């Protein structure tokens, strides 16, 4: 009997539909959809979904269902619910914030449960990014607890703690650095960059005049600023989707614009950067990306079960390449890269995912240095598999994942998540051996050394 699946997501969106279509195509039963909205308002639970999936009464030896967490975004009720869940006065606060990296930091001007639930939808508005992330991490922690009560060894495609780690760009950078995966240099630890002045001082004293400032919990282009200063003239420039509206004495409203904007005015730049830094931001060197004609590109590389699969290059005239910002999609085959370079970029992405040993799928953003073409990891997207019109061996990303992960084989069922992680680690080990020329020093075996831990959730 094929393995059942529980999908935690927003029903009726493109992601859920894509996954269900893939399951239907492969002859798998539809996943039981557990909506975020229900989890947040108490009308649904993992236990309930488990019994729907027939998994609660499973005979011994039957596989536990595969548990997939998908993106919570694009639904205001869910966004609001997560901000409320992250409130200091929410009962969930009693459990602490164990899955929240940097959870000891307090959020600026927190909203109470009541004020959070009273928020009204304003398109593009960033209501409270750090409290939202706190709420999301609390939900992840709750799901992890509940899964452990239901099954001896829950079968997450991406475990909640890994999702929290990949979602936090500070933590991602830390984990990848420790695993010896090439990443752009950290400007300074987050606690040293409290605000705009400290950021500028740090850039000037370290002579890193070009940086990316990224909202720790942002996804996509949201909360990303390409910032540079000219040490000779003092001029500065920030390119970002972050916009701000000031209304006299009232608190300013920050929002995410659909178009990139360029700021050169210090007061505007200061306001935007201070806001990001207060909510928690990661600051790293801005490495110039390789050129494609008069534009530059990075690569979104999907990695599933230790194998690089679907990929697409995002070609842009701007420093921020996200596809909704008028970047052009180009097949990686058409970039004219030397085969070795392409393989190195893919291997780098595989190695990056292996640094999160309890995860089987992520969209990894890889840049190639403009001069050396050496790969660096820019971002890890635990929900980065929504790629349109990209096929790998004749399958779309969902079909590919379902064929790799949900085949219902006894092997997946009997073995713990540890076996899945070791599937992931194997090709990584061989890829790592061809990797020495990529400017990657440190711990070449770091990523491959982790599968033993894979089966145990602590």
């Amino acid at each position, binding site marked *: 009997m094929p393995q059942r699946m529980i999908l935690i997501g927003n029903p009726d969106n493109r992601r859920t539909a894509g996954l269900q279509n893939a399951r239907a195509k492969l002859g798998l039963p539809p996943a039981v959809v557990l909506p975020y909205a229900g989890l947040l308002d108490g009308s649904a639970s993992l236990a309930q979904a488990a019994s729907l999936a027939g998994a609660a009464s499973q005979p011994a030896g039957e596989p536990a269902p595969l548990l997939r967490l998908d993106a919570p975004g694009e639904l205001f009720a869910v966004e609001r619910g997560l901000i409320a869940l992250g409130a200091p006065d929410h009962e969930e606060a009693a459990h602490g914030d164990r899955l929240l990296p940097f959870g000891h930091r307090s959020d600026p001007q927190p909203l109470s449960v009541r004020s959070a639930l009273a928020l009204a939808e304003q398109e593009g508005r960033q209501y409270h990014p750090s409290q939202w992330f706190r709420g999301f991490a609390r939900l992840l922690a709750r799901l992890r607890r509940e899964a452990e009560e239901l099954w001896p060894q829950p079968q997450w495609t991406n475990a909640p703690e890994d999702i929290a780690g990949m979602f936090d760009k500070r933590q991602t950078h830390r984990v990848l650095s420790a695993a010896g995966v090439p990443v752009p240099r950290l400007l300074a630890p987050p606690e040293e960059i409290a605000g705009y002045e400290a950021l500028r001082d740090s850039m000037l004293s370290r002579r890193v005049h070009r940086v990316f400032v990224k909202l720790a919990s942002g996804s996509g282009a949201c909360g990303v600023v390409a910032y540079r200063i000219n040490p000779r003239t003092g001029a500065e420039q920030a390119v970002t989707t972050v916009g701000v509206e000031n209304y006299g004495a009232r608190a300013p409203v920050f929002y995410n614009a659909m178009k990139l904007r360029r700021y050169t005015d210090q007061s505007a730049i200061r306001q935007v950067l201070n806001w990001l830094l207060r909510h928690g931001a990661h600051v790293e060197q801005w490495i110039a990306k390789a*050129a494609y004609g008069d534009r530059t590109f990075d690569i979104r590389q999907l990695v599933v079960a230790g194998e690089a699969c679907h990929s697409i290059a995002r070609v842009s005239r701007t420093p921020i390449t996200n596809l909704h910002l008028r970047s052009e999609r180009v097949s990686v085959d058409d970039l004219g890269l030397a085969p070795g370079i392409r393989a190195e970029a893919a291997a780098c992405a595989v190695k990056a995912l292996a640094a999160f040993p309890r995860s089987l799928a992520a969209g990894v953003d890889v840049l190639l240095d403009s001069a050396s073409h050496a790969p660096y990891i820019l971002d890890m997207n635990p929900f980065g598999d929504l790629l349109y019109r990209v096929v790998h061996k004749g399958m779309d990303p969902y079909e590919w994942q379902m064929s790799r992960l949900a085949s219902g084989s006894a092997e997946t069922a009997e073995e713990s998540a540890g076996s899945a992680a070791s599937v992931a680690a194997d090709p990584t080990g061989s890829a790592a051996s061809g990797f020495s020329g990529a400017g990657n020093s440190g711990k070449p075996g770091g990523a491959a050394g982790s599968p033993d831990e894979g089966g145990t959730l602590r």
Partner: protein
Amino acid sequence: MSEVKLTIDYDQYENGKKMKDLLEELANSPQSGELTSLIIGDWGGAYENDSEETVETLVALKDRFPKLTSLFIGDMSFEECEVSWIMQTNLAPLLEAYPALRSFTIKGSTGLDLNPARHENLEELTIICGGLGKDVIHQIYEGSFPRLKKLELYLGVDEYGFDASLEDVLKLTEPGKFPELTYLGLKNSEIQDELAIALAEAPILDGLHTLDMSDGTLSDTGAEALLNSEKVKKLQYLDLSHHYMSDEMVNRWKSSGLNVNTDDQQDMDEDDDYRYPSLTE
């Protein structure tokens, strides 16, 4: 053809590597004698060091690159250095040092001079920037390029250094100024409409095969003048890509039978009636 691109990237720059060293290494390599095209990228912190040392080194090494016909100074992406932050210098000594050059390309106009702008054999001159200064335009006008076939100038916006008047620019199109010119690019301009109107019936068009008015703020106003011109109809190619023309105007071009590029139509910003050239800063 053999081509080499030299760049000092961030790490090399911070470690004290200099473009001068790379150029001397290249001059001492066996390929220097056969090199036909040299591209200089970032010479190391191009936003805080101008290109003077690079120019001096290239002048000193002029006999080592006897076959060099193509030279590009400042080929760097917007990520490596903001185009308006690239610090150039007087590049005229390169023209004097390399009399066999056919093609000369410059990116960045801050600190740029071409004085004297003179070359007996140069066929292509391109300046890519966010705003070209009146001084450089005047230097080109006062200079001498008797064999020039292609002149391509990104004029840009006043905020990044374009301080010339329409008349200053149009002086470059005086009859006989560049007797062999077949490609004229006066582009990436915030006065693209005015230029289009002024050039539509200009005598210089008679000798051209290509008029390049791309990357600027061309709207239906300028396009109308071009579309109505008998001289434009005789061109082999008209480049109007990156423009603010209406769909209707684009369709008129498409049915005109002319070889015209109307790609990359820009949206008029709804809340802000302002048009931007393609490359500003």
